[in-house]
């Protein structure tokens, strides 16, 4: 018990220090970034959604490795859950689980709506909230609903992973196209002075690729878990 009280005291010290620094921060607060993005953001990138502008243009390098983390995690989860024993032999877990009928009907209704919403979010990432990562996650959730409808669905994980890796290579290629058109790595391949509608082509393309990659990656992750839980 004294151990826990001491711990709470320690955390209390951290809390006090943080509170004091927050009070100090109010006078130091620097909003250079906010002003920059407000004034230049749209002209630079052609994206009305400034978050997408940052993710796909100003800090595209981060986003590439964000997708890379997903790629690595997918391969890692699959590797850890993979059995050396043939997969056919491993299909022995009980399948007592049965989705209620009402839920199945409801899922059938929701599934296409969700898929459509996901694609909407992906494609309109540069004008409204959303983008490749968010839309991809929604699409993955929609695919997850498919598993509720049919619990015994078979998925070819190997194929999905291969497609995912290829899409990642394509994303890298698309991101570095700008080097050949304007000599700068990882930005829009249209020059900054181009028409915003033209620049939107690049944003939509990249959003679609990232969306697919994220959707496939999350799909693989939960398929691996579902297999584990069966």
């Amino acid at each position, binding site marked *: 018990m004294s151990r*826990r009280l001491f*711990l*709470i005291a320690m*955390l209390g010290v*951290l*809390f006090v220090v*943080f*509170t004091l620094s*927050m009070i100090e*921060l109010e006078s130091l607060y620097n*909003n250079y*970034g*906010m002003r920059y*993005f*407000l004034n230049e*953001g*749209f002209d630079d990138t052609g994206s*009305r*959604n*400034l*978050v997408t*502008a*940052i*993710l796909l243009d100003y*800090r595209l390098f*981060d*986003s590439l490795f*964000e997708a890379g*983390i*997903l790629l*690595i*995690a997918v391969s*890692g*989860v699959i590797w*850890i*859950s993979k059995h050396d024993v043939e997969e056919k032999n491993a299909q022995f877990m009980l399948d007592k689980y049965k989705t209620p009928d009402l839920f199945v009907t409801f899922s059938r209704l929701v599934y296409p709506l969700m898929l459509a919403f996901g694609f909407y979010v992906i494609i309109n990432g540069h*004008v*409204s*909230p959303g*983008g490749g*990562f*968010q839309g991809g996650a929604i699409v993955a959730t929609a695919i997850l609903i498919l598993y509720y409808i049919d619990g015994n669905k078979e998925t070819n994980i190997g194929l999905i992973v291969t497609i995912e890796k290829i899409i990642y290579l394509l994303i890298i290629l698309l991101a570095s196209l700008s080097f050949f058109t304007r000599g700068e790595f990882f930005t829009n391949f249209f020059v900054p002075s181009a028409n915003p509608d033209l620049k939107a082509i690049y944003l939509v393309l990249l959003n679609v690729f990232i969306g697919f990659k*994220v959707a496939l990656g999350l799909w693989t*992750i939960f398929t*691996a*878990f579902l297999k*584990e839980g069966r």
Partner: protein
Amino acid sequence: MNPILTFIVILIGFYGLSTSDNIIKSVFCVTIIESGVILLFLNLGNFEGGAIPILNDHLVDIVDPLPQALMITTIVIGSTVTALSLMLCIKIFHHYGTVEWAEVLRREDVKS
């Protein structure tokens, strides 16, 4: 005020990490800390009367979009960490028959 309340959430996460004896509980706590950090970043980026960072035709004061972009990255990172650690948890339970930290670390490595 809000950042301070969020920091309490982070501290609760750390409290959980340093008292929980269960592996799954520790993964929960890391999730809590991660959500807390995201919220802290957004709290600090937000200000009274700010608008969402999507430009309209008329110019208004928007909140800083950079923290939001960074936090999307953090959400993806956090979810992959959670997925990986939970997969490891499943394997540990299968191997050691328990997910208590103390028991798992105490089990001798038996080798033939």
